């Protein structure tokens, strides 16, 4: 009988829309390096999947191969190569709105048809710094030394090789030296410090950056922080609270270290929820313990309760500078869609085989 059913209607689509969720997003704050938003009307599984994709599966560029031509610095070759790999690399096409998203601009080096590497799948950086070439110019600036030039114990200040010294062969790709202007103002260097050199030391290398995801190596991770917390649902039982004295109400309000409640005897005489309680609540035990002490019998109703919501989440995403925060969110949704489409195709294949 089952066979006949399938013959008449190969894929009976009995459930089309009813089980779909319609999530909502509300942006709390948006800067190029950070985004805070509230995701609601969806399940923890979707929130967690988005978080995992943001951390692990959004493709970015990072230095993957390093050819060292000369290294007389105090750090050994692989140390410097490791540091180069961790530098966040930003792709910014001037006429596009996409802040750093490499999707479509580069191919994965495994899929590229070139022999070893080409501009389509990789970007080359060159770095060449020689202390003695740079130094004559710096000595002229140290006019404050004065007569010290003749003294033997004059200490030549070390020169810091930074990410600014990396010269790219693709004009749209540069290392992300700083997250924002404040960080640049506070920094003593021009970029991310790589190694400090002294007189007679040189560093000459060629670095190749490729596209990858964080699951392969953490250097490709576009975010520094991607977390979510649950929206607190604070319910106050006014009837039960009215049996409390003013001192008891004040005690309840004061015992919570997050200050999520307010009580003003003159204004309302009731305990109310503080305005920024959603931001500061951390679900501590203090309120519950104090309430149990105040109850006349243990099985009485609670005066108030703080519960984490099961369908509303407060996200906080901070980038490393390789991509803009909103781009990471859009890219992670795109990656999720691609994964789901791929799954759907493969499931169709399995259904066809089992028919």
């Amino acid at each position, binding site marked *: 009988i*089952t066979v006949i059913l399938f013959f008449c209607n190969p*894929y*009976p*689509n*009995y*459930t*089309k*829309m009813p*089980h*779909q*969720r*319609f*999530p*909502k*997003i*509300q*942006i709390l704050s*948006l800067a190029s390096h950070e985004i805070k*938003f509230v995701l609601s009307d969806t*399940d*923890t*599984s*979707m929130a*967690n*999947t988005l978080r*995992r994709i943001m951390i692990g*599966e959004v493709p970015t560029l990072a230095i*993957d*191969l*390093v*050819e*060292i*031509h000369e290294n007389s610095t105090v750090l050994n*070759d*692989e140390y410097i*190569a*490791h540091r180069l*790999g961790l530098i966040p690399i930003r792709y910014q096409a001037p006429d596009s709105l996409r802040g750093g998203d490499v999707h479509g601009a580069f191919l994965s080096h495994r899929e590229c048809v070139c022999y070893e590497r080409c501009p389509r799948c990789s970007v080359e950086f060159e770095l060449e710094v020689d202390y003695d070439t740079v130094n004559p110019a710096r000595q002229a600036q140290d006019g404050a030394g004065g007569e010290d030039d003749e003294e033997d114990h004059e200490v030549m200040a070390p020169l810091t090789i930074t990410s600014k010294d990396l010269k790219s062969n693709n004009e749209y790709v540069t290392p992300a030296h700083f997250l924002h202007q404040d960080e640049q103002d506070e920094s003593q260097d021009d970029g991310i410090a790589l190694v400090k050199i002294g007189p007679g030391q040189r560093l000459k290398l060629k670095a190749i950056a490729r596209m990858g*995801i964080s*699951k*392969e*190596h953490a250097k490709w991770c576009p975010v520094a922080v991607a977390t979510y917390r649950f929206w607190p649902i604070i319910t106050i039982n006014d009837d039960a609270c009215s049996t409390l004295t003013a001192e008891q109400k004040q005690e309840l309000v004061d015992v919570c270290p997050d200050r999520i409640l307010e009580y003003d005897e003159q204004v309302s005489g009731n305990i109310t929820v503080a305005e920024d309680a959603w931001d500061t609540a951390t679900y501590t035990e203090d309120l519950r313990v104090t309430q149990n002490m105040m109850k006349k019998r243990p099985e009485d109703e609670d005066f108030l309760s703080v519960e984490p919501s099961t369908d509303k989440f407060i996200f906080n995403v901070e980038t490393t500078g390789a991509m803009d925060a909103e781009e990471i*969110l*859009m890219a992670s*949704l*795109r990656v*999720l*869609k691609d*994964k*789901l489409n*791929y*799954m*759907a195709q*493969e*499931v*169709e*294949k*399995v*259904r066809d*085989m089992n028919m």
Partner: protein
Amino acid sequence: AIRVDDNDDSNKNSNKMNAPERAASFLLDEDSGEVKITYATDTKVSNAGTFTLNKEDHTMGNLLRMQLLRDPSVRFAGYYHPHPLVHYLDLKIQTTTSNVSPAEVLSSAIEDLSNEADHLITQVSDSIDQWRKENENQF
């Protein structure tokens, strides 16, 4: 010139002999015949089957499982990731009637999730545009 490879595949296996390739956690090894999804009907339980999803982890597993649980024609849905070092999931689905196969239910769940992701994408762009408009005066 000395060549130092930061993360190149060719050197890795000689340096760390036992470590598997990092990319093996998400890249399908088609050369050795790995397929993304295989299906095995359950012999002891009616209307049930197990999907083996290769190169997936909790990112997809939990998402699919929770969506399957919302479907009233699903009696049982569960997944497990047997060990962090092996990269596949087992997803067990049992449906309530024999008219509906586990593959159909999974297909429908993926479609619902796909629509939800589309909905989210439009929501995010609208939300960002709205925030930009509201905060234009600060720029």
